[in-house]
């Protein structure tokens, strides 16, 4: 199983090497991958039917309970089929569709990487692992959407898609971690046992809302839906595969998967129903306002996803069943429609519904596929769509007091989708062929067989539901509902409200299709509502965020060193002040303070005055000489307080510094006074505050009792063990010799630095690599 999942990654990695050797055959080679996987999964059909689910476990990061364990049950099997099956068709379709494209090999690399990640998502039992694959689907779709990477538009929509799904993913990650914190495990199977506990916990609300964000962003639910139409920039195979059949359903999968674990609560159902219904209606309306085939399909897909969320939200057995069927039905017909659109685009170079017509004359098989798909989406009897619609209406009708409204919503959505479906699947083929498309011809079977196959499947499953009823839908249903109610799909439910509704749907839809013509004008009219569309709101929001970023950054990183220093030290000062006055008890014990002698006073005065002098004067030389005096007074302190070594070192170093300054000053420009008095005042205040705090702190620390254990040891052993009488020097070369050893390195580095600074100048050169 592990192999099955990661095989795609391995293939993806192999691309560069394969390219080297057999570039030509890559497409066929890679098409074998989904095909064989499909077959591999097919053999689980019976097993699942009998024993519900099978688990595969592989160690990975045991220390935090993350492993590569895969759970194959009805739901995941259904998805596995869609992923590999439709995958196979898409792979084949691509062979001709992108024939001779420069980067065909890469394309297959991405596709198989995506397929693997998608399989990972639907098969993982460990939520963290699932999340990992989840993110990988985002990334691989990023690469696929941006496949024509030199076109700015596709780069933009790739970035948008990645941002939205990425953000959703991160939110979902916290949701999963929270879930683990509450439920105590990442394993879905184990979590199922503590389902009740989780629902009762206070964090439940957080968990579901976080997970919802993930699911909604991925499955393009309102208001995060808008990345999907943008993603149509990708080549049609990608749109088919990711944006109708598989990836966008990952969110649905997530919700379905979590239904038995978290579902069946007020918030769960309420949110899903609301979001779902809003999405399905909103998108359905949009779909009939569009004229570009791909965007029509995009919006109808969103609407379909909305329906699924809606159904899962209703959460009754019927509803879940409906969802289960609809997932499959939609995958079949929508994929077909996309592929057909691709063919039309490929052959005629146009996707404009208003222009396209009468193509059945040149491409009959495609037309047939189109008809089947359109009819299935419309829910015409004998097609799978019909069954799903029936069950769906049953579900909505059973929903207590809200039944009417929900049904109404469902019906109207269905009607609109019917129109959209017909426009996409029927309209281009009927009527008479415009002259501009004369030369369009039937492409290679590689293109038209896949959609036709899908269409036929819709028909087959629709006509003979028993084909899938027990074998596939039953397990799907039971893994979604967690119950083992037996379901049977039949075409004929007898005369009842549901049937009436279906007929009503078909009739109104048909009429609408007959009279309502797709028109660019209508679309133009609606554009003014775009201002309040979520896309604009969110994009506006991100623009505002951008400008906020600018303001923030410019505010702090304003380029003026002094502002930096002020910020830093203001922070420090506040911190110190706060701690000093709330937390430190300040007292002064005068016995600790030694008396003052007159010459010390003189030196102190000397020092203070020269400090003030140094900072107040505006002449560099004077401030340097003043610095000299300060250092000199410093030495006198050191001397009085018995540190001859210090006095000597400080004095020599001060003189050297002064000398250095003098040598530098020769070259410096005349000094100017820059800052205004207000600024001077502000700085002076801050500085005084800082100085005062340091002083107070020093005093308080000084008053603390001091232990001299270490120094005592030094003094006692200086001669006995270290054979020196000047303890300071003994410390420098022995006790703490390492300091000194490092310190001379500092000197060396400084010297080298100064030397290079003076000698090496790469400036005259223009630019440097």
């Amino acid at each position, binding site marked *: 199983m592990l192999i099955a999942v990661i095989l795609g990654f391995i293939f993806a990695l192999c691309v560069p090497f394969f390219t080297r050797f057999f570039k030509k055959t890559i497409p066929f080679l890679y098409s074998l991958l989904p095909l064989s996987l499909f077959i591999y999964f097919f053999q689980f059909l019976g097993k699942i039917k009998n024993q519900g689910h099978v688990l595969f476990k592989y160690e990975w990061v045991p220390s935090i309970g993350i492993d590569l364990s895969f759970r194959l049950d009805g739901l995941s099997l259904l998805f596995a089929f869609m992923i590999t099956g439709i995958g196979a068709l898409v792979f084949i379709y691509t062979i001709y569709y992108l024939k001779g494209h420069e980067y065909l090999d890469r394309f297959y690399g991405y596709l198989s990487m995506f397929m693997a990640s998608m399989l990972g998502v639907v098969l993982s039992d460990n939520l963290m692992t699932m999340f990992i694959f989840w993110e990988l689907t985002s990334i691989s779709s990023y690469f696929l959407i941006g496949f024509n990477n030199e076109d700015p538009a596709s780069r933009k929509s790739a970035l948008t898609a990645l941002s939205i799904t990425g953000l959703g993913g991160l939110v979902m990650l916290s949701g999963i971690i929270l879930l683990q914190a509450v439920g105590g495990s990442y394993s879905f199977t184990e979590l199922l046992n503590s389902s009740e506990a989780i629902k009762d916990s206070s964090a439940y609300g957080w968990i579901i809302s976080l997970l919802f964000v993930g699911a909604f962003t991925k499955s393009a639910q309102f208001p995060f839906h808008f990345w999907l139409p943008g993603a149509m920039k990708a080549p049609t195979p990608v749109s088919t595969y990711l944006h109708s059949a598989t990836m966008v359903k990952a969110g649905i999968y997530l919700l379905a998967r979590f239904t038995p674990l978290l579902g069946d609560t007020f918030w769960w159902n309420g949110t899903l129903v609301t979001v779902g219904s809003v999405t399905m209606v909103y998108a359905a309306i949009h779909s009939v306002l569009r004229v570009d085939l791909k965007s029509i399909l995009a919006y109808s897909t969103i609407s379909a996803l909305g329906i699924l969320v809606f159904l899962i939200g209703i959460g009754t057995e019927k509803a879940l069943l409906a969802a289960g069927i609809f997932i499959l039905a939609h995958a079949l017909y929508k994929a077909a429609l996309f592929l057909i659109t691709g063919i039309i685009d490929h052959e005629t170079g146009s996707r404009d519904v208003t222009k396209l017509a009468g193509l059945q004359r040149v491409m009959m098989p495609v037309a047939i596929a189109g008809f089947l798909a359109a009819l299935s989406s419309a829910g015409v009897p004998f097609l799978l769509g019909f069954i799903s619609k029936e069950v769906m209406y049953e579900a909505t009708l059973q929903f207590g007091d809200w039944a009417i409204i929900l049904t109404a919503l469902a019906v109207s959505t269905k009607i609109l989708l019917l129109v959209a479906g017909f426009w996409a699947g029927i309209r281009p083929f009927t009527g008479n062929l415009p002259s501009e498309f004369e030369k369009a011809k039937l492409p290679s079977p590689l293109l038209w067989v896949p959609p036709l196959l899908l269409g036929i499947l819709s028909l087959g499953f629709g006509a003979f539901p028993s084909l899938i009823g027990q074998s596939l839908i039953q397990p799907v249903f039971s893994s979604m509902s967690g119950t083992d109610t037996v379901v049977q799909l039949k075409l004929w439910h007898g005369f009842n409200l549901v049937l009436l509704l279906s007929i009503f749907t078909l009739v109104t839809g048909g009429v609408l299709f007959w009279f309502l013509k797709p028109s660019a004008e209508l679309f133009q009219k609606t554009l003014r509502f775009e201002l309040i569309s979520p896309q604009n709101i969110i994009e506006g929001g991100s623009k505002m965020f951008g400008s906020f970023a600018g303001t923030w950054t410019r505010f702090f990183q304003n380029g003026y060193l002094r502002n930096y220093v002020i910020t830093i030290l203001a922070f420090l000062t506040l911190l110190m002040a706060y701690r000093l006055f709330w937390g430190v008890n300040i007292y002064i014990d005068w016995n600790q303070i030694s008396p003052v002698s007159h010459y*010390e006073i003189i030196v102190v005065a000397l020092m203070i005055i020269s400090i003030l002098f140094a900072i107040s004067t505006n002449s560099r030389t004077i401030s340097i000489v003043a610095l000299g005096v300060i250092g000199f007074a410093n030495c006198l302190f050191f001397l009085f307080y*018995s540190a001859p070594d210090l006095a000597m070192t400080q004095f020599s170093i001060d003189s050297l*510094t002064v000398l250095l300054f003098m040598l530098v000053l020769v070259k410096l420009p005349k000094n100017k006074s820059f800052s205004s008095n207000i600024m001077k005042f502000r700085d002076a205040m801050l500085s005084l505050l800082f100085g005062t705090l340091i002083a107070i702190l020093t005093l308080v620390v000084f008053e603390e009792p001091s232990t001299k254990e270490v120094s005592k040891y030094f003094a006692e052993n200086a001669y006995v063990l270290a054979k020196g009488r000047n*303890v300071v020097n003994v410390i420098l070369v022995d006790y703490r010799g390492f300091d000194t050893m490092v310190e001379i390195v500092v000197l060396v580095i400084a010297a080298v630095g100064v030397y290079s600074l003076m000698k090496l100048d790469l400036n005259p050169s223009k630019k440097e690599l």
Partner: protein
Amino acid sequence: MEILLIIIIGLLHAGGLYMLLRRSMFKMIIGLILLGNGANLLIFLLGRLVKGKPPVMEDGMKVFADIYADPLPQALVLTAIVIGFGLQSFAIILIRRVYNVLNTDDLDDLNSTDEEI
């Protein structure tokens, strides 16, 4: 006496910061040097002051006869002084080079690398 020294320490820090906040590179360096002196004095003071008793034994002594100044802060300050010299001299040369290349002493002329584009 310590009080006076503490006042000086405070003043050194205040003055240092004040100079650091000026626009002239040169004053900035002066500020850093003042801060450095302040820190050294601070450490020295916190080692507690002992007058006229350097931690140097007379000949023939094997240990100290009477009280002596704490040698450790002295060693620390000495290290700090020498390190400070290294850093300061580099900084001083740096402003000189900056002046050579950019022909200014005004820090406000040096913000091209901060601008966000």
